Protein backbone atom coordinates (compact mmCIF):
# COMPACT_ATOMS: atom_id res chain seq x y z
CA UNK A 1 0.00 0.00 0.00
CA UNK A 2 1.36 3.39 -0.91
CA UNK A 3 1.87 5.84 1.96
CA UNK A 4 -0.85 8.06 0.54
CA UNK A 5 -3.46 5.33 0.07
CA UNK A 6 -5.66 6.87 2.75
CA UNK A 7 -5.77 10.23 0.97
CA UNK A 8 -6.12 8.91 -2.57
CA UNK A 9 -9.28 6.98 -1.69
CA UNK A 10 -11.80 9.47 -3.05
CA UNK A 11 -14.72 7.75 -1.35
CA UNK A 12 -13.25 8.85 1.99
CA UNK A 13 -13.18 12.53 2.84
CA UNK A 14 -11.69 13.55 6.17
CA UNK A 15 -11.25 17.16 4.98
CA UNK A 16 -14.78 18.49 4.54
CA UNK A 17 -15.33 18.45 8.29
CA UNK A 18 -12.58 21.09 8.61
CA UNK A 19 -14.49 23.49 6.34
CA UNK A 20 -17.71 24.81 7.94
CA UNK A 21 -19.29 25.85 4.64
CA UNK A 22 -18.74 22.42 3.14
CA UNK A 23 -19.66 20.56 6.31
CA UNK A 24 -22.90 22.54 6.54
CA UNK A 25 -23.81 21.89 2.90
CA UNK A 26 -23.22 18.19 2.38
CA UNK A 27 -25.19 18.28 -0.90
CA UNK A 28 -22.95 20.97 -2.40
CA UNK A 29 -20.32 19.88 -4.91
CA UNK A 30 -18.03 22.91 -4.75
CA UNK A 31 -15.87 22.75 -7.87
CA UNK A 32 -14.79 26.38 -8.12
CA UNK A 33 -11.78 26.58 -5.83
CA UNK A 34 -9.70 28.15 -8.60
CA UNK A 35 -11.95 31.21 -8.25
CA UNK A 36 -11.81 31.18 -4.48
CA UNK A 37 -11.21 28.34 -2.05
CA UNK A 38 -13.25 27.58 1.04
CA UNK A 39 -11.73 28.38 4.43
CA UNK A 40 -11.20 25.93 7.26
CA UNK A 41 -12.46 26.69 10.75
CA UNK A 42 -8.90 27.26 11.96
CA UNK A 43 -8.62 30.24 9.59
CA UNK A 44 -11.98 31.68 10.61
CA UNK A 45 -11.03 31.18 14.26
CA UNK A 46 -7.71 32.94 13.71
CA UNK A 47 -9.42 35.94 12.14
CA UNK A 48 -11.75 36.15 15.13
CA UNK A 49 -8.93 35.59 17.61
CA UNK A 50 -7.01 38.52 16.16
CA UNK A 51 -9.89 40.92 16.66
CA UNK A 52 -10.75 39.52 20.08
CA UNK A 53 -7.30 39.36 21.60
CA UNK A 54 -4.79 41.51 19.72
CA UNK A 55 -6.72 44.13 17.81
CA UNK A 56 -4.89 47.43 17.56
CA UNK A 57 -3.38 49.38 14.71
CA UNK A 58 -0.09 47.67 13.92
CA UNK A 59 3.23 49.48 13.56
CA UNK A 60 2.43 52.80 15.20
CA UNK A 61 1.06 52.07 18.66
CA UNK A 62 3.38 52.18 21.63
CA UNK A 63 1.24 49.98 23.83
CA UNK A 64 1.15 46.21 24.23
CA UNK A 65 -1.82 45.49 21.97
CA UNK A 66 -0.33 47.34 19.05
CA UNK A 67 2.94 45.53 19.59
CA UNK A 68 1.03 42.22 19.46
CA UNK A 69 -0.70 43.26 16.25
CA UNK A 70 2.67 44.19 14.79
CA UNK A 71 4.05 40.83 15.94
CA UNK A 72 1.14 39.07 14.20
CA UNK A 73 2.11 40.70 10.92
CA UNK A 74 5.81 39.98 11.33
CA UNK A 75 5.21 36.33 12.21
CA UNK A 76 2.94 36.02 9.19
CA UNK A 77 5.66 37.51 7.00
CA UNK A 78 8.20 35.04 8.33
CA UNK A 79 5.93 32.07 7.80
CA UNK A 80 4.96 33.19 4.28
CA UNK A 81 8.64 33.66 3.43
CA UNK A 82 9.46 30.11 4.60
CA UNK A 83 6.41 28.79 2.77
CA UNK A 84 7.50 30.06 -0.66
CA UNK A 85 11.22 29.71 -0.05
CA UNK A 86 12.01 33.42 0.22
CA UNK A 87 15.30 34.10 1.97
CA UNK A 88 14.15 37.20 3.86
CA UNK A 89 10.78 37.97 5.49
CA UNK A 90 11.44 41.68 4.96
CA UNK A 91 10.85 41.21 1.25
CA UNK A 92 7.29 39.94 1.79
CA UNK A 93 4.99 42.84 0.89
CA UNK A 94 1.36 42.69 2.01
CA UNK A 95 -1.16 43.56 -0.69
CA UNK A 96 -4.85 42.95 -1.21
CA UNK A 97 -4.47 40.21 -3.80
CA UNK A 98 -2.43 38.97 -6.77
CA UNK A 99 -3.82 41.70 -9.03
CA UNK A 100 -2.63 44.43 -6.71
CA UNK A 101 0.76 42.76 -6.29
CA UNK A 102 1.25 42.56 -10.06
CA UNK A 103 0.07 46.14 -10.50
CA UNK A 104 2.65 47.19 -7.93
CA UNK A 105 5.37 45.63 -10.09
CA UNK A 106 3.93 47.07 -13.29
CA UNK A 107 3.58 50.58 -11.86
CA UNK A 108 6.64 50.86 -9.63
CA UNK A 109 9.23 48.58 -11.19
CA UNK A 110 8.46 48.32 -14.91
CA UNK A 111 8.92 52.03 -15.74
CA UNK A 112 12.44 51.82 -14.26
CA UNK A 113 13.52 49.33 -16.90
CA UNK A 114 11.23 49.85 -19.91
CA UNK A 115 12.15 52.19 -22.76
CA UNK A 116 10.44 52.61 -26.15
CA UNK A 117 11.13 49.56 -28.29
CA UNK A 118 11.77 47.25 -25.32
CA UNK A 119 9.66 44.15 -24.92
CA UNK A 120 7.59 42.59 -22.16
CA UNK A 121 7.09 38.89 -22.78
CA UNK A 122 4.09 37.08 -21.30
CA UNK A 123 2.16 33.90 -22.15
CA UNK A 124 -1.19 33.75 -23.94
CA UNK A 125 -2.59 31.86 -20.96
CA UNK A 126 -2.30 34.75 -18.51
CA UNK A 127 -5.19 35.75 -16.30
CA UNK A 128 -6.17 39.36 -17.06
CA UNK A 129 -4.44 40.36 -13.81
CA UNK A 130 -1.06 39.39 -15.27
CA UNK A 131 -1.89 40.78 -18.69
CA UNK A 132 -3.75 44.09 -18.53
CA UNK A 133 -1.17 45.75 -16.21
CA UNK A 134 1.53 44.86 -18.78
CA UNK A 135 -0.59 46.17 -21.66
CA UNK A 136 -0.99 49.40 -19.76
CA UNK A 137 2.67 49.84 -18.85
CA UNK A 138 3.66 49.03 -22.44
CA UNK A 139 1.32 51.77 -23.65
CA UNK A 140 2.80 54.24 -21.18
CA UNK A 141 6.43 53.43 -21.92
CA UNK A 142 6.31 52.62 -25.64
CA UNK A 143 7.36 49.02 -25.01
CA UNK A 144 5.92 46.11 -26.95
CA UNK A 145 3.93 43.22 -25.46
CA UNK A 146 5.03 39.86 -26.87
CA UNK A 147 3.27 36.52 -26.31
CA UNK A 148 4.50 32.97 -25.85
CA UNK A 149 2.08 30.28 -27.05
CA UNK A 150 1.67 26.67 -25.91
CA UNK A 151 1.97 23.66 -28.20
CA UNK A 152 -0.83 21.14 -28.76
CA UNK A 153 -0.12 19.59 -25.36
CA UNK A 154 -0.56 23.01 -23.70
CA UNK A 155 3.19 23.20 -23.09
CA UNK A 156 5.19 26.36 -23.64
CA UNK A 157 8.36 24.77 -24.91
CA UNK A 158 11.88 26.02 -24.36
CA UNK A 159 12.04 26.57 -28.10
CA UNK A 160 9.04 28.91 -27.89
CA UNK A 161 10.60 30.73 -24.94
CA UNK A 162 13.83 31.22 -26.85
CA UNK A 163 11.90 32.44 -29.90
CA UNK A 164 10.21 35.17 -27.85
CA UNK A 165 12.66 36.12 -25.11
CA UNK A 166 15.63 38.01 -26.50
CA UNK A 167 17.87 41.06 -26.25
CA UNK A 168 14.89 43.47 -26.37
CA UNK A 169 13.09 41.66 -23.54
CA UNK A 170 13.22 43.51 -20.24
CA UNK A 171 10.46 41.70 -18.33
CA UNK A 172 9.07 38.17 -18.61
CA UNK A 173 5.83 37.53 -16.72
CA UNK A 174 4.00 34.21 -16.52
CA UNK A 175 1.51 32.26 -14.49
CA UNK A 176 3.13 29.27 -12.82
CA UNK A 177 -0.18 27.41 -13.24
CA UNK A 178 -2.88 28.39 -15.76
CA UNK A 179 -6.32 29.13 -14.32
CA UNK A 180 -7.98 27.74 -17.45
CA UNK A 181 -5.77 24.91 -18.73
CA UNK A 182 -4.53 23.86 -15.30
CA UNK A 183 -1.03 23.27 -16.66
CA UNK A 184 2.17 24.19 -14.89
CA UNK A 185 4.45 26.44 -16.92
CA UNK A 186 8.19 25.91 -16.69
CA UNK A 187 8.83 29.27 -15.05
CA UNK A 188 12.25 28.12 -13.91
CA UNK A 189 13.47 27.80 -17.50
CA UNK A 190 11.75 31.06 -18.39
CA UNK A 191 13.62 32.78 -15.55
CA UNK A 192 16.90 31.29 -16.68
CA UNK A 193 16.41 32.51 -20.25
CA UNK A 194 15.19 35.91 -19.05
CA UNK A 195 18.32 36.29 -16.96
CA UNK A 196 20.53 35.34 -19.90
CA UNK A 197 19.24 38.53 -21.49
CA UNK A 198 19.36 40.57 -18.26
CA UNK A 199 15.57 40.64 -18.17
CA UNK A 200 13.50 40.22 -15.00
CA UNK A 201 11.14 37.34 -14.25
CA UNK A 202 7.72 37.93 -12.67
CA UNK A 203 5.73 34.86 -11.60
CA UNK A 204 1.97 34.87 -10.95
CA UNK A 205 1.56 32.17 -8.32
CA UNK A 206 -2.18 32.60 -7.72
CA UNK A 207 -3.02 29.14 -9.09
CA UNK A 208 0.18 27.31 -8.20
CA UNK A 209 0.52 28.05 -4.48
CA UNK A 210 -2.66 26.12 -3.56
CA UNK A 211 -1.64 23.00 -5.47
CA UNK A 212 2.11 22.49 -5.71
CA UNK A 213 5.17 23.06 -3.57
CA UNK A 214 6.61 26.43 -4.50
CA UNK A 215 10.26 27.33 -4.03
CA UNK A 216 11.08 30.74 -5.44
CA UNK A 217 14.78 30.26 -4.72
CA UNK A 218 14.68 27.27 -7.05
CA UNK A 219 12.63 29.12 -9.70
CA UNK A 220 15.09 32.00 -9.35
CA UNK A 221 12.46 34.59 -10.26
CA UNK A 222 12.63 38.29 -9.38
CA UNK A 223 9.01 38.82 -8.29
CA UNK A 224 6.37 36.36 -7.12
CA UNK A 225 2.71 37.15 -6.36
CA UNK A 226 -0.16 35.17 -4.87
CA UNK A 227 -3.53 35.61 -3.17
CA UNK A 228 -4.53 34.46 0.31
CA UNK A 229 -8.09 33.55 -0.62
CA UNK A 230 -7.07 30.87 -3.09
CA UNK A 231 -5.00 29.11 -0.48
CA UNK A 232 -7.78 28.84 2.12
CA UNK A 233 -6.98 32.20 3.70
CA UNK A 234 -9.20 35.29 3.84
CA UNK A 235 -10.21 37.45 0.89
CA UNK A 236 -8.38 40.77 0.78
CA UNK A 237 -4.86 39.66 1.64
CA UNK A 238 -2.29 39.00 -1.05
CA UNK A 239 1.46 38.76 -1.18
CA UNK A 240 4.20 40.17 -3.32
CA UNK A 241 7.73 38.92 -2.89
CA UNK A 242 10.51 40.76 -4.69
CA UNK A 243 14.28 40.64 -4.74
CA UNK A 244 15.43 42.97 -2.00
CA UNK A 245 17.67 45.15 -4.15
CA UNK A 246 14.84 45.67 -6.64
CA UNK A 247 12.22 46.48 -3.99
CA UNK A 248 14.75 48.79 -2.40
CA UNK A 249 15.35 50.69 -5.64
CA UNK A 250 11.69 50.97 -6.60
CA UNK A 251 9.59 54.05 -5.86
CA UNK A 252 6.48 53.47 -3.73
CA UNK A 253 3.23 52.44 -5.45
CA UNK A 254 0.70 54.00 -3.06
CA UNK A 255 1.72 56.78 -0.70
CA UNK A 256 0.37 58.03 2.62
CA UNK A 257 0.37 56.75 6.19
CA UNK A 258 2.79 54.18 7.56
CA UNK A 259 4.93 54.04 4.43
CA UNK A 260 6.93 57.17 5.21
CA UNK A 261 10.10 57.86 7.12
CA UNK A 262 9.44 61.58 7.58
CA UNK A 263 7.22 64.18 5.98
CA UNK A 264 7.70 67.93 5.59
CA UNK A 265 5.37 70.47 4.00
CA UNK A 266 6.80 69.85 0.55
CA UNK A 267 8.37 66.43 0.65
CA UNK A 268 8.65 63.02 2.20
CA UNK A 269 11.11 60.17 2.56
CA UNK A 270 10.13 56.55 2.55
CA UNK A 271 10.14 53.81 5.14
CA UNK A 272 12.32 50.81 4.33
CA UNK A 273 11.04 47.74 2.46
CA UNK A 274 8.45 46.27 2.93
CA UNK A 275 6.62 49.12 4.73
CA UNK A 276 7.46 51.45 1.82
CA UNK A 277 4.87 49.52 -0.20
CA UNK A 278 2.26 49.23 2.54
CA UNK A 279 0.48 52.58 2.67
CA UNK A 280 -2.32 52.81 5.20
CA UNK A 281 -3.42 50.35 7.84
CA UNK A 282 -2.74 46.82 6.67
CA UNK A 283 -5.08 43.85 7.01
CA UNK A 284 -3.29 42.52 10.06
CA UNK A 285 -6.10 40.10 10.85
CA UNK A 286 -5.95 38.85 7.28
CA UNK A 287 -2.21 38.32 7.49
CA UNK A 288 -2.66 36.50 10.81
CA UNK A 289 -5.39 34.29 9.33
CA UNK A 290 -3.32 33.63 6.20
CA UNK A 291 -0.56 32.46 8.51
CA UNK A 292 -3.09 30.02 10.03
CA UNK A 293 -4.15 28.87 6.54
CA UNK A 294 -0.57 28.06 5.62
CA UNK A 295 -0.12 26.21 8.91
CA UNK A 296 -3.23 24.18 8.09
CA UNK A 297 -2.03 23.31 4.59
CA UNK A 298 1.39 22.32 5.93
CA UNK A 299 -0.23 20.13 8.56
CA UNK A 300 -1.89 18.12 5.79
CA UNK A 301 1.41 17.79 3.96
CA UNK A 302 2.13 18.55 0.33
CA UNK A 303 2.61 14.88 -0.49
CA UNK A 304 -0.94 14.12 0.60
CA UNK A 305 -2.44 17.20 -1.11
CA UNK A 306 -0.69 16.54 -4.41
CA UNK A 307 -1.52 12.82 -4.34
CA UNK A 308 -5.21 13.41 -3.63
CA UNK A 309 -5.56 16.20 -6.20
CA UNK A 310 -3.83 14.05 -8.80
CA UNK A 311 -6.35 11.31 -8.10
CA UNK A 312 -9.23 13.80 -8.32
CA UNK A 313 -7.97 15.11 -11.67
CA UNK A 314 -7.57 11.57 -12.95
CA UNK A 315 -11.06 10.50 -11.89
CA UNK A 316 -12.66 13.72 -13.17
CA UNK A 317 -10.99 13.55 -16.58
CA UNK A 318 -11.78 9.83 -16.91
CA UNK A 319 -15.43 10.49 -16.14
CA UNK A 320 -15.70 13.52 -18.43
CA UNK A 321 -13.92 11.70 -21.25
CA UNK A 322 -16.53 8.96 -21.05
CA UNK A 323 -19.25 11.46 -21.92
CA UNK A 324 -19.43 11.71 -25.72
CA UNK A 325 -20.87 15.24 -25.63
CA UNK A 326 -18.03 16.74 -23.59
CA UNK A 327 -15.05 18.41 -25.25
CA UNK A 328 -12.13 18.73 -22.88
CA UNK A 329 -10.01 21.87 -23.16
CA UNK A 330 -6.37 21.63 -22.21
CA UNK A 331 -4.14 18.61 -21.84
CA UNK A 332 -5.68 15.14 -21.95
CA UNK A 333 -3.13 13.89 -19.42
CA UNK A 334 -4.65 14.27 -15.93
CA UNK A 335 -1.16 14.53 -14.43
CA UNK A 336 -0.72 17.85 -16.27
CA UNK A 337 -3.68 19.39 -14.41
CA UNK A 338 -3.27 21.34 -11.18
CA UNK A 339 -6.74 22.26 -10.03
CA UNK A 340 -8.47 23.45 -13.19
CA UNK A 341 -10.24 21.19 -15.68
CA UNK A 342 -11.97 23.09 -18.49
CA UNK A 343 -14.48 21.72 -20.95
CA UNK A 344 -17.50 22.49 -23.08
CA UNK A 345 -20.77 20.68 -23.58
CA UNK A 346 -21.39 20.37 -27.32
CA UNK A 347 -24.04 22.83 -28.54
CA UNK A 348 -24.78 24.14 -25.04
CA UNK A 349 -23.56 27.53 -23.88
CA UNK A 350 -21.40 27.41 -20.71
CA UNK A 351 -23.73 29.78 -18.86
CA UNK A 352 -26.61 27.40 -19.42
CA UNK A 353 -24.42 24.51 -18.26
CA UNK A 354 -23.50 26.34 -15.06
CA UNK A 355 -27.10 27.39 -14.35
CA UNK A 356 -28.41 23.85 -14.76
CA UNK A 357 -25.56 22.38 -12.71
CA UNK A 358 -26.36 24.96 -10.02
CA UNK A 359 -29.91 23.61 -9.83
CA UNK A 360 -28.23 20.29 -8.98
CA UNK A 361 -26.00 21.84 -6.27
CA UNK A 362 -22.89 21.73 -8.40
CA UNK A 363 -20.86 24.96 -8.42
CA UNK A 364 -18.56 25.49 -11.39
CA UNK A 365 -17.31 28.56 -13.20
CA UNK A 366 -18.45 29.40 -16.73
CA UNK A 367 -17.42 32.25 -18.95
CA UNK A 368 -14.11 33.65 -20.13
CA UNK A 369 -12.32 33.07 -16.80
CA UNK A 370 -10.59 36.44 -17.03
CA UNK A 371 -8.48 35.01 -19.85
CA UNK A 372 -10.17 36.38 -22.97
CA UNK A 373 -7.02 36.44 -25.15
CA UNK A 374 -6.43 32.74 -24.40
CA UNK A 375 -9.99 31.77 -25.26
CA UNK A 376 -9.93 33.86 -28.45
CA UNK A 377 -6.65 32.20 -29.39
CA UNK A 378 -8.23 28.77 -28.85
CA UNK A 379 -11.18 29.84 -30.99
CA UNK A 380 -13.83 29.73 -28.28
CA UNK A 381 -15.81 32.51 -26.62
CA UNK A 382 -16.28 30.82 -23.30
CA UNK A 383 -16.02 27.51 -21.50
CA UNK A 384 -16.90 25.66 -18.32
CA UNK A 385 -14.32 25.05 -15.62
CA UNK A 386 -14.45 22.60 -12.76
CA UNK A 387 -11.62 23.11 -10.33
CA UNK A 388 -10.72 20.76 -7.53
CA UNK A 389 -9.01 21.05 -4.18
CA UNK A 390 -8.06 18.28 -1.74
CA UNK A 391 -11.41 18.68 0.04
CA UNK A 392 -13.29 17.39 -2.98
CA UNK A 393 -14.22 13.74 -3.32
CA UNK A 394 -15.73 11.13 -5.62
CA UNK A 395 -19.26 12.25 -4.80
CA UNK A 396 -18.49 15.79 -6.03
CA UNK A 397 -17.23 14.52 -9.38
CA UNK A 398 -20.14 12.07 -9.68
CA UNK A 399 -22.59 14.91 -9.07
CA UNK A 400 -20.87 16.93 -11.78
CA UNK A 401 -21.17 14.05 -14.22
CA UNK A 402 -24.84 13.44 -13.33
CA UNK A 403 -25.52 17.15 -13.75
CA UNK A 404 -23.83 17.22 -17.15
CA UNK A 405 -25.94 14.29 -18.31
CA UNK A 406 -29.00 16.29 -17.27
CA UNK A 407 -27.73 19.32 -19.20
CA UNK A 408 -27.30 17.20 -22.30
CA UNK A 409 -30.71 15.56 -22.08
CA UNK A 410 -32.45 18.92 -21.45
CA UNK A 411 -30.98 20.36 -24.60
CA UNK A 412 -30.91 17.27 -26.75
CA UNK A 413 -33.40 14.89 -25.16
CA UNK A 414 -36.70 13.94 -26.62
Amino acid at each position, binding site marked *: MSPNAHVTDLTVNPYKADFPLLANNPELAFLDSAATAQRPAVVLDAQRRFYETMNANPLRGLYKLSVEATEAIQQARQHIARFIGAPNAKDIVLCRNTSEALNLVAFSFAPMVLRPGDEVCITIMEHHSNLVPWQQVCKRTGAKLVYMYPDKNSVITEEEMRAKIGPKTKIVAAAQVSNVLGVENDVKTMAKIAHEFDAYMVVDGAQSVPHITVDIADIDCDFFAFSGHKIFGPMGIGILWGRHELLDAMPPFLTGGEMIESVTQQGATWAPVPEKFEAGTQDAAGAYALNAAITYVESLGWGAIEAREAELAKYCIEQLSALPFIRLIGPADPAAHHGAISFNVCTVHPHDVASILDMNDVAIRAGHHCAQPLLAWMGIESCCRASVAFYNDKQDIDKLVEGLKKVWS*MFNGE
Partner: protein
Amino acid sequence: MGNSIYSAALMDHNAHPDNKYDLQDATYSHDGINPSCGDEMTLKLKVNDGVIEKAAFTGHGCAVSQASADIMADLIEGETVEEARRLSGLFLGMIQGKELSDQDREDLDEAAELESISRMPARVKCAELAWRTLDGILDENGE
Protein backbone atom coordinates in the same frame (compact mmCIF):
# COMPACT_ATOMS: atom_id res chain seq x y z
CA MET B 1 -37.37 21.05 -12.70
CA GLY B 2 -40.25 23.29 -11.64
CA ASN B 3 -38.14 26.27 -10.60
CA SER B 4 -36.18 26.21 -13.81
CA ILE B 5 -35.78 29.25 -16.01
CA TYR B 6 -35.53 26.73 -18.82
CA SER B 7 -39.24 26.65 -19.64
CA ALA B 8 -40.57 24.78 -22.65
CA ALA B 9 -41.05 28.10 -24.45
CA LEU B 10 -37.47 29.18 -23.79
CA MET B 11 -36.05 25.84 -24.88
CA ASP B 12 -38.17 25.93 -28.03
CA HIS B 13 -37.14 29.44 -29.03
CA ASN B 14 -33.51 28.53 -28.37
CA ALA B 15 -33.68 25.36 -30.46
CA HIS B 16 -35.71 26.93 -33.29
CA PRO B 17 -35.12 30.66 -33.43
CA ASP B 18 -37.32 31.73 -36.36
CA ASN B 19 -35.87 35.22 -36.27
CA LYS B 20 -32.21 34.25 -36.24
CA TYR B 21 -30.95 35.10 -39.71
CA ASP B 22 -29.22 37.91 -41.51
CA LEU B 23 -31.97 40.32 -42.57
CA GLN B 24 -31.04 41.45 -46.05
CA ASP B 25 -33.08 44.61 -46.57
CA ALA B 26 -32.60 45.99 -43.07
CA THR B 27 -32.78 49.72 -42.52
CA TYR B 28 -30.98 49.59 -39.16
CA SER B 29 -28.31 47.38 -37.65
CA HIS B 30 -26.73 47.44 -34.19
CA ASP B 31 -24.25 45.26 -32.31
CA GLY B 32 -24.81 44.32 -28.71
CA ILE B 33 -22.28 42.72 -26.41
CA ASN B 34 -22.53 41.13 -23.00
CA PRO B 35 -19.18 42.00 -21.42
CA SER B 36 -19.56 39.51 -18.58
CA CYS B 37 -19.39 36.55 -20.96
CA GLY B 38 -18.32 37.98 -24.33
CA ASP B 39 -21.58 37.06 -26.05
CA GLU B 40 -22.29 39.13 -29.15
CA MET B 41 -25.42 39.85 -31.10
CA THR B 42 -26.25 41.86 -34.19
CA LEU B 43 -29.84 43.05 -34.35
CA LYS B 44 -31.28 44.24 -37.65
CA LEU B 45 -34.58 45.99 -38.22
CA LYS B 46 -36.53 46.96 -41.27
CA VAL B 47 -38.44 50.07 -40.30
CA ASN B 48 -40.91 51.65 -42.68
CA ASP B 49 -42.88 54.75 -41.80
CA GLY B 50 -42.33 54.29 -38.08
CA VAL B 51 -43.35 50.62 -38.09
CA ILE B 52 -40.99 47.70 -37.51
CA GLU B 53 -41.80 45.44 -40.42
CA LYS B 54 -39.04 42.90 -39.76
CA ALA B 55 -36.69 42.13 -36.87
CA ALA B 56 -33.92 39.55 -36.99
CA PHE B 57 -30.67 38.78 -35.17
CA THR B 58 -27.42 36.91 -35.61
CA GLY B 59 -24.61 36.09 -33.21
CA HIS B 60 -23.94 33.66 -30.43
CA GLY B 61 -25.00 33.33 -26.86
CA CYS B 62 -26.63 31.17 -24.23
CA ALA B 63 -30.11 29.75 -24.45
CA VAL B 64 -31.47 32.60 -22.35
CA SER B 65 -30.06 35.32 -24.60
CA GLN B 66 -31.01 33.54 -27.81
CA ALA B 67 -34.56 32.76 -26.73
CA SER B 68 -35.03 36.26 -25.34
CA ALA B 69 -33.92 37.74 -28.69
CA ASP B 70 -36.22 35.47 -30.67
CA ILE B 71 -39.20 36.22 -28.43
CA MET B 72 -38.46 39.93 -28.69
CA ALA B 73 -38.32 39.84 -32.47
CA ASP B 74 -41.68 38.04 -32.56
CA LEU B 75 -43.13 40.65 -30.23
CA ILE B 76 -41.97 43.82 -31.96
CA GLU B 77 -42.61 42.83 -35.55
CA GLY B 78 -45.55 44.83 -36.81
CA GLU B 79 -45.37 47.27 -33.90
CA THR B 80 -44.57 50.96 -34.11
CA VAL B 81 -41.19 52.11 -32.89
CA GLU B 82 -42.84 53.84 -29.92
CA GLU B 83 -44.64 50.66 -28.94
CA ALA B 84 -41.41 48.65 -29.26
CA ARG B 85 -39.71 51.14 -26.95
CA ARG B 86 -42.55 50.84 -24.45
CA LEU B 87 -42.41 47.04 -24.54
CA SER B 88 -38.64 47.11 -24.11
CA GLY B 89 -39.11 49.37 -21.07
CA LEU B 90 -41.62 46.93 -19.63
CA PHE B 91 -39.36 43.94 -20.25
CA LEU B 92 -36.22 45.53 -18.80
CA GLY B 93 -38.23 46.71 -15.80
CA MET B 94 -39.52 43.18 -15.26
CA ILE B 95 -36.03 41.68 -15.49
CA GLN B 96 -34.84 44.26 -12.95
CA GLY B 97 -37.50 42.96 -10.59
CA LYS B 98 -40.38 45.40 -11.16
CA GLU B 99 -43.89 43.97 -10.69
CA LEU B 100 -45.94 43.63 -13.85
CA SER B 101 -49.61 44.51 -14.04
CA ASP B 102 -51.98 42.05 -15.73
CA GLN B 103 -52.11 44.41 -18.69
CA ASP B 104 -48.28 44.57 -18.90
CA ARG B 105 -48.14 40.79 -18.79
CA GLU B 106 -50.61 40.56 -21.60
CA ASP B 107 -48.68 43.11 -23.66
CA LEU B 108 -45.38 41.30 -23.18
CA ASP B 109 -47.01 38.02 -24.12
CA GLU B 110 -44.40 35.23 -24.22
CA ALA B 111 -41.67 37.60 -23.04
CA ALA B 112 -43.41 37.77 -19.65
CA GLU B 113 -42.51 34.11 -19.19
CA LEU B 114 -38.90 35.14 -18.69
CA GLU B 115 -39.85 36.88 -15.43
CA SER B 116 -38.20 34.22 -13.25
CA ILE B 117 -34.81 35.29 -14.61
CA SER B 118 -35.18 38.45 -12.53
CA ARG B 119 -34.43 36.21 -9.53
CA MET B 120 -31.18 34.97 -11.10
CA PRO B 121 -28.81 37.97 -11.00
CA ALA B 122 -26.11 36.05 -12.87
CA ARG B 123 -28.40 35.61 -15.88
CA VAL B 124 -30.11 39.00 -16.01
CA LYS B 125 -27.61 40.36 -18.54
CA CYS B 126 -28.22 37.37 -20.83
CA ALA B 127 -31.95 38.07 -20.94
CA GLU B 128 -31.39 41.80 -21.43
CA LEU B 129 -28.91 41.65 -24.29
CA ALA B 130 -31.40 41.77 -27.21
CA TRP B 131 -33.58 44.38 -25.58
CA ARG B 132 -30.67 46.66 -24.75
CA THR B 133 -29.50 46.25 -28.33
CA LEU B 134 -32.99 47.25 -29.48
CA ASP B 135 -32.82 50.41 -27.35
CA GLY B 136 -29.39 51.07 -28.84
CA ILE B 137 -30.61 50.72 -32.42
CA LEU B 138 -33.52 53.08 -31.84
CA ASP B 139 -31.41 55.66 -30.00
CA GLU B 140 -28.71 55.55 -32.63
CA ASN B 141 -31.15 56.14 -35.43
CA GLY B 142 -33.18 58.84 -33.72
CA GLU B 143 -36.27 56.70 -33.76
